[in-house]
C-alpha cells in the first residue's frame, strides 16, 4: 500500500508552460516555472514591454461575511481599517496583500506558497478562513503596456484601478479580480482555476502586439510590492 506517495501540485497552466519550453523547479510541493528557454528576459525588458507571470501557486485565502473585520484586525492590527476596494499590505505572519473586494469579502494574497501560518492565525482569531489557492489562477502582468493591453480586454477602465486598489470585473468574458499594488505598471489578475488557461492564452494572444513575454517566477523578483 502506497498511501504517502507525494504528488506535486501543478498550476492550471502547467501544460501551456511545457508546450512553450518552460524549465520547472519544485517549490514547497509545487512545480513552478523557473524560466522559458525561448524567452529569456533581457535586463530592463520589464520596464519597456509587457511581462506575464503565472502566480497560481501562491497561497490565496478568502474570508467571508461578518468574519472580515476580525480578519483585518488579526492581520493588520487595530486602527488600520481596509475600505472596500482598497489593497493593503501585511507582513505578519508572512508578507502579502489584503484585498477588500467587498464589505463582506476579504481576499488575502500571500507572498509565499505555504500560507499555513496565515490560516492558523485567522483560525485563532475565529475568522473561518477558506483556502482558495486551488480555486483561483493568478497572473502577474507588468510593464508599461499593462494598461493598454487590459484596456482592450475589459469593460472596466484599468486606469480606474489606482495603485492600492482592486476591482472585480469581466475580463475576456469571464469574472476576474484585478489587483493593483503600489506600482502603477503592475497588475495582478485572478480568475477561476478552470478558466486559467483560457484567460492566459487570450492575454498572450492579445498581448502580441504589445510585445508580451511569459517569464518564470524568479524573474518576477518581487510579486507583491509594498502597498501604502
Amino acid at each position, binding site marked *: 500500500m*502506497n*498511501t*504517502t506517495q*507525494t*504528488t506535486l501540485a501543478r498550476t492550471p497552466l502547467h501544460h501551456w508552460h511545457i508546450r512553450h519550453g518552460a524549465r520547472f523547479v519544485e517549490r514547497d510541493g509545487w512545480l513552478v516555472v523557473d524560466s522559458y528557454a525561448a524567452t529569456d528576459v533581457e535586463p530592463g525588458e520589464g520596464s519597456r514591454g509587457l511581462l506575464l507571470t503565472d502566480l497560481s501557486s501562491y497561497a490565496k485565502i478568502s474570508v*467571508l461575511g461578518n468574519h472580515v473585520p476580525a480578519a483585518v484586525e488579526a492581520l493588520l492590527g487595530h486602527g488600520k481599517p481596509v475600505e472596500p476596494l482598497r489593497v493593503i499590505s501585511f507582513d505578519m505572519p508572512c508578507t502579502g496583500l489584503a484585498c477588500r473586494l467587498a464589505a463582506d469579502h476579504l481576499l488575502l494574497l500571500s507572498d509565499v506558497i505555504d500560507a499555513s501560518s496565515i490560516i492558523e492565525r485567522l483560525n485563532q482569531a475565529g475568522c473561518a478562513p477558506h483556502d482558495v489557492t486551488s480555486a483561483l489562477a493568478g497572473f502577474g502582468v507588468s510593464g508599461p503596456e499593462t494598461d493598454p493591453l487590459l*484596456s482592450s480586454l475589459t469593460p472596466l477602465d484599468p*486606469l480606474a484601478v489606482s495603485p492600492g486598489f482592486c476591482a472585480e470585473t469581466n475580463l475576456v468574458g469571464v469574472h476576474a479580480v484585478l489587483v493593483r499594488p503600489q506600482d502603477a505598471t503592475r497588475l495582478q489578475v485572478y480568475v477561476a*482555476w*478552470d478558466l486559467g488557461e483560457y484567460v492566459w492564452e487570450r492575454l498572450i494572444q492579445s498581448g502580441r502586439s504589445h510585445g508580451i513575454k511569459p517569464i518564470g517566477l524568479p524573474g518576477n523578483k518581487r510579486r507583491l510590492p509594498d502597498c501604502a
Partner: protein
Amino acid sequence: MTASQSPALLAGCLVDRSRPVSFTYEDRAMPAFEGQSIAAALYAAGIRVFTRSFKYHRPRGLFCVSGDCPNCLMNVDGRPNVRTCVEPVRDGQIVRHQNAWPSLDWDVLNVFDKLHRFLPVGFYYKRFHKPRWLWPIFEHVVRHVAGLGKVDAHAGHETDAEIEHLHTDVCVIGGGRAGMQAAAEASGSGARVVLLERMPRLGGRSLLNNAQVAADEESKLLSDSRVTVHCNTTAFGLYEGNLIGACSDNRFLKIRAKDIIVCTGSRQQPFLFENNDLPGIFLGDGVLRLASLYGVVAGRRVVVLTENDEGHGLAKQLCELGMDVAAVVDQRSDGMQSPKQNSIPLLGSSSIVRARGRKRLEGVWVATWDQKAGTDKSSQKYIACDVLCMASARQPANELLLQAGMRFRHVDGRWSAEQQLEHIRAAGSVAGTEQARCAGKTTPTAAGNAKRFVCLCEDVTEKDIQQALAEGFDHIETLKRYTTVNMGPCQGKMCGLAAVEVCARGKTCEAGAVGTTTSRPPAAPVELGVLAAGHTHQPIRRTPLHHWHEAAGAQWLDAGQWKRPESYGDPEAEVRWVRTNVGLIDVSTLGKIELIGPDAAELLDRIYLNRWSDLKPGRVRYGAMCNEDGILIDDGVGTRLDAERFYITATTGNADAIVQWLELWRATWRLNVTILSQTSAFAAMNLAGPRSREILQRLTSIALSPAAFPYMTMREGQVAGVACRVFRIGFVGELGYEIHCPSSHAWGLWETLHDAGADCGLRPFGVEAQRILRLEKGHLIIGQDTDALSHPLEAGWEWMVRFDKPVFVGRDPLLRLKAMGPRARLVGFFMLDTERVPPEGCQVVEQGRPVGRLTSTRYSPTLRKSLGLAWVPANKAAIGQRFFIRWDGADAPAIIVPTPFYDTEGRRLKS
C-alpha cells in the same frame, strides 16, 4: 464628357491611381484603383442600374453615395446587402447583383410594377387569405420575390471578429470639421479623446469642397498624442452609461466615455415627384462624393433641384467638374439670394413634376409651382438631362442622439435639439439644420397612377401613405408599422422626413405635431458576424485533467463552457469494462458548494425536497430541489462535514445558478450561513467497478470495507498523500468511490490511481459510457429527462418530497399537484425490437396523436437491449403496458418495465 473619361480629369481624394486593382462583376473583370468604392468603379465602367427595388423590382441607381440608402446593395464575396457605394474595392473581389432575375438589366419580376394596383399598401393583410389554404402558398411566393439579398446557408460564414474595449474621457463621433474641432478642444483641455469616423479619412463634407483644409486639420489631429483616431469605424448604438457600440472591419468596439460629443452632421433629403427613383437621380452630396472622393463624374448634363442657396453653390461646383448644368430649379418664390451664376438657367418658383426614363434618367418636366396653388400644368417644360441633383435643406443625422434620449423640435422647417443630456452633446450641423426649409419637399399629389416614392427601401409611395391614413393608421408609429415606411435598410434616413410631411398634409397639421418614429440601435447596418464577435472567443473551462484526456485520445463533448471527454474511442467497451472490471471518469465539472454556518442545515431543509438537518456527519444524502412552481431544477448528493458545515454537489451546467439560488434564499430568509462555490477549487474523479475498492485501498489508509465505509457515506483522508473527500456513491450503478481533491493535485492523483490500477486493467471512461451506465441503472438527469413542466411527483420521486417540513421551496404548488394527481409519469421501457434505438425526443403516440416523449434512449451493452426513459400519460404508465413511438414515419412498439433496468436490488452498488 462621359463618366468613363472622368478618372483622367479627377483625382478623388481617397483614390490612389498608382495602385490599380481588379475585381469581377457578374463574371466580368473590372478595372479600378485602390481607395475607390465598388460602386464608383462600376459607375466609371458605365454601370447605371445597381439594384432592383424591394417590391416592384424597379431599376435603381446610385443615390446618396454615403451608405445610407438601399440603392447600391450587392453581394460581395458571398456577403449579401453590402453597401457598395462605400465599400472599398479590393483585388480579386467577386461582386454580383441581388434580388433580380435573370439580370439587373432585365428583371422578370419587374412585372409587379405593372400590377401595382393589385398590391396596395398592406396587401398581405387583405389579399389571399380566403380560402385559408391559399395564404401559405402566397406567403411562400411573397417571401421569395420580395426582399433583399439572401445569405447562402451552405457557404462558410466563419468570422474572426473580436470584441475590443476602449476607455476614454471624451469620445467624438464623426470626423467632419465639427468633430475635428471638438476633438482638438477636448484634447487641449487635457482629456483623452477617441474620435470615430466612418469614412477612411477625416474631413466629412469639407472633403467635398475644401479637401486641403480638411487635410491640414486631419494631420494636426493625427499628431496629437492624446487623440486616438479610428477611421472606417461606424458608431451604431449609444447605450446607457455612455456606452458606444461601434464596428470597424471585423472588430466590435465597446467604447466607454465620460463625455460623448456627437458630430454626425446632416444629410440632404429627396424631393417627391413622379418617377423620383430613376437611375441618374442623386442627392447633391452624392454627386459631389462620387467626384471628390472617388474621382468619377456622374454624367454630362445635369439639372439641380433645390430649395435653398446650397443648390446654387452645388451648381457652381458641378460646372467646375465639367458638367453642363442645364438648369437650377428653385422652389422658392422669394428669398433667392444667389445671383445667376455663369449663365446657368435659373427657374424660380418652379419644381420638377416628373422624371422621364426607364433604366436611366433622360430628362425632367419642370413646372411653375406654388405651395398653395399647386402646379401650373400649362407651364410644363421638358429639360433633357442624364443627372438630377437634389439639394434640399439638410436633416440632422441624429439617430444616435435620439437613441440617447435627446429630442428634436421641428419649427419653421428647422430641426433643433430640444433637450440637452448630461455628458452627451451635439456639435455641428447635427445640432440643427443650417438653413430653414422654404416650402417642403413635396409637391402636391399627382393624379393618376404616378409613383412618387417616399421610401426607396420598401417601395412605399405617397399614395400608399395616403391610403393608410384613410384606413385609420394616422399615428406615425402605426403608419410606420402598417406601411413599413422607415423600416428598410435606411431606417428612415432617406424617408423619415418625407413620411412625416406626407402624414402632416394628410392630417392637415404641422409636421412638428406628427412627431417622429423611435430610433433604436443599430443606427447603421452591422454584420451579424461582428455582433457575434464574442462567440468566436467563448470561454473554455478545462478540468485539471484536460490535457491527460487529450493525450489519451479523448473525443470532446461541449457541456456548457466545459470540455468533457465524451469517450476514448468505444463507449460500449468502456461500459462493459466498468461493469466487469474498473474504470475511472473525470467528474470535476460537477458543481461543488460548501455551506458554513449555524443555519446551513436550515437552508438546505428549505431548498431541497427532503430533509437534511438530520443528516449525520460523514453520511451522504441524495436530494433534488424545485423552483417556486414545484418544477425540478437540480439534484445532487451532499454530505455533512460537521455540525455547521455541508458540502453539496450540483449538476455540471447548473453550478453557478445553484450558488445564486442558494444566495437568493439565504438573503430572503436572512439565514446565518456562508455559501462558498468550490467548483474550481476541487477536482473530482469517480473510480467505479467491482475492483475499485481493491485499487483504492492501495493508496489510502481509509478503511474501505463495506462495514467501515458503507454505501452513501463520506470519509476525509489522504489518498496518495493528497487530502481528499471520498464519497461512496454510485451514479453508474457499481461499487464506486467519488474522490474530491484540490484541483492543483488532481493530475498527480489521477496518474497515481492509473498506475495503481494498471495491473487490474484500470481504464478511463467518458461521458457517453457514463450516460449508458446511469440509464441502465434508471438514474435520471435533470434537464434531459425533465423539462420546464416536470415535477417530482410525476418523475417518480414522491418518496423524496417531505411535506411534513413546514417550509421548502415549491411546497405549496406541489401540495396542489399532489391533490390533482399526476398527469404523466416518467417510466422505463424496452423496445420490442431490441436492436433498434429510437432517437431521444421521439413522440409517444396513441391512435396517431402525441401523448408523450422519449427523454433518454440507448442500447444497453450489459442487457443487450434497446431501452430508455419516457414520459407517458399517467393512466398508461402501468408496468407491462405497451405504447408506440412515432419514428421515421412509423409507429414502433415498446413496453413499460420497472426501473432500474440493471441490478434492481442494488446489491452491486452496496457490495
